[in-house]
């Protein structure tokens, strides 16, 4: 077992007075792909967004308990959210490139971090685009608008944009749910490559996807973490009946 990267202890999350996450305790290892599965509204995306504090943007969200990343409690009062989000990047369900050039999209993160030198930016942009497996497709048109790319390319560009900030963890919220099968398989290949350098946490609706790409799988249901284990075990011999019912398609 590798080193643990993220762990939570008895974490609860409320939307106003509604309990959305109930007593979540989990240990997510470093440089592995961890998948969160479960029916819509089970809290898996909410939990994912707690890991880089994107829930802070939503009014009325209250969190109890602790979330540690590298043994630092990220909900401590003295935590700088901006620094946290540089360390914990996020790729969204719907690709959301800025209405800027391909180059400027990737350079955005480094620029706000104060990288000004053109040569250094060029290197960061190229590396990020290569790591996101999109360099070959865009290298001759870096100055073109990102809006002209296909959906799958846009999503890989968004991954490149996230990687350009040099995060340690990449959170992915159903990154391929809006894409065609070919683009999806490219994203999946990419995720498997990325775990060499990054800790990946991915929310997915697609159980085959979780089975294909993840090392560990967590099954959420009604705001609770029902079962968390090696992906192989979850999909072949789960301990809990609810997990088995879900993965065999009996509900959800």
């Amino acid at each position: 077992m590798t080193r643990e990267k993220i762990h939570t202890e008895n974490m609860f999350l409320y939307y106003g007075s509604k309990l959305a996450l109930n007593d979540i305790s989990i240990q997510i290892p470093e440089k592995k792909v961890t998948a969160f599965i479960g029916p819509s509204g089970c809290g898996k995306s909410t939990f994912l967004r707690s890991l880089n504090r994107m829930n802070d943007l939503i009014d009325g969200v209250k969190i109890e308990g602790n979330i540690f990343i590298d043994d630092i409690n990220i909900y401590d009062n003295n935590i700088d959210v901006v620094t946290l989000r540089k360390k914990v990047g996020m790729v969204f369900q719907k690709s959301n490139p800025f209405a800027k050039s391909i180059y400027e999209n990737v350079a955005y993160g480094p620029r706000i971090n104060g990288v000004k030198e053109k040569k250094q930016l060029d290197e960061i942009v190229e590396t990020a685009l290569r790591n996101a497996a999109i360099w070959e497709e865009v290298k001759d048109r870096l100055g073109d608008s990102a809006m002209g790319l296909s959906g799958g390319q846009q999503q890989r560009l968004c991954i490149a944009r996230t990687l350009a900030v040099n995060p340690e963890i990449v959170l992915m919220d159903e990154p391929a749910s809006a894409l065609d099968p070919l683009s999806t398989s490219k994203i999946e290949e990419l995720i498997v490559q990325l775990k060499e350098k990054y800790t990946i946490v991915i929310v997915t609706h697609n159980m085959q996807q979780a089975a294909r790409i993840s090392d560990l799988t967590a099954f959420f249901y009604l705001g609770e973490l029902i079962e968390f284990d090696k992906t192989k075990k979850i999909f072949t011999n789960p301990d809990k009946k609810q997990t088995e019912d879900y993965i065999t398609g009996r509900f959800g």
Partner: protein
Amino acid sequence: MIKSFKKNIKGILIEGLTLSSALLIIAIVVVMVTVIVIGGKDQISWEFLTSFPEDGMTKGGIFPAIYGTALLVIIMSVAAVPFGTITAIYLTEYAKENSVIAKTIRFAVRTLAVIPSIIYGLFGLGFFIKFVGTQMDNTFLGGQLKWGQPNILWASLTMALLTLPVVIVSVEEALKTVPKDLRAASLALGATKWQTIWKVVIPGSISGIMTGTILAVSRGAGEVAPILFTGVAYYVATLPSSLSDQFMVLGYHIYVMTTQSANVDKTMPIQFGTTLVLLALTFILNISAIVLRYRIRKKKTN
């Protein structure tokens, strides 16, 4: 059979009535524009646009009024656009949607928008000239009269207040067209809220901010009442060279020529010419605002 025939007649009558009132609107516009264009077109010449009035304003051009109008709207925009944009940014990016403060600001903006323009004029006279100006004279000039009287600065600031709601509302609308996803993307990359606003939200809504500016300018270019007591002059022999100078404006020039002129009939061509210039100016401004707004909508649907 007969009944349905009656119903039919009634339907036709109602449709006819609504159609004719709609056509009446078109007729009014056509007549108005035609009269102004026919009356003014022969007057328009390079000379008319670039020279000073002559012979007690019965001859010559309207250059000081064009210059004054331009200067007025520029100073006004310099004041109203940043102020309005910053307010709109507060409302869309910082204030919680239904908070007391946001509601109060929106109420104030709506109130500003419905205050009759002459009241702005009186406010400008009382606040900028009598209060701020006089204080400035007493403090810095030992009571010598300089700022405590009408001038282009006070007139522009008064006009800026009048156009502020236009700016705020259009900028707010423009900021809202920037998808929440993009804000989230920027924040997730470790940008601060301000970096997100400055590098993603404002560039994404710049054409909307431009639209707001143009609409404000077009409103300001046509209004007369707010500047009546605060800086516009019947006639000045020189162009304003300092913020404490008085100035001439197209709208007020039309009023002066038609009511205060020694010989109204003789100045008729100048009145038409001036009206045509003012009308053309506001048309051009409004059309560019519409074009910009159309482009934003198109971008939004893409």
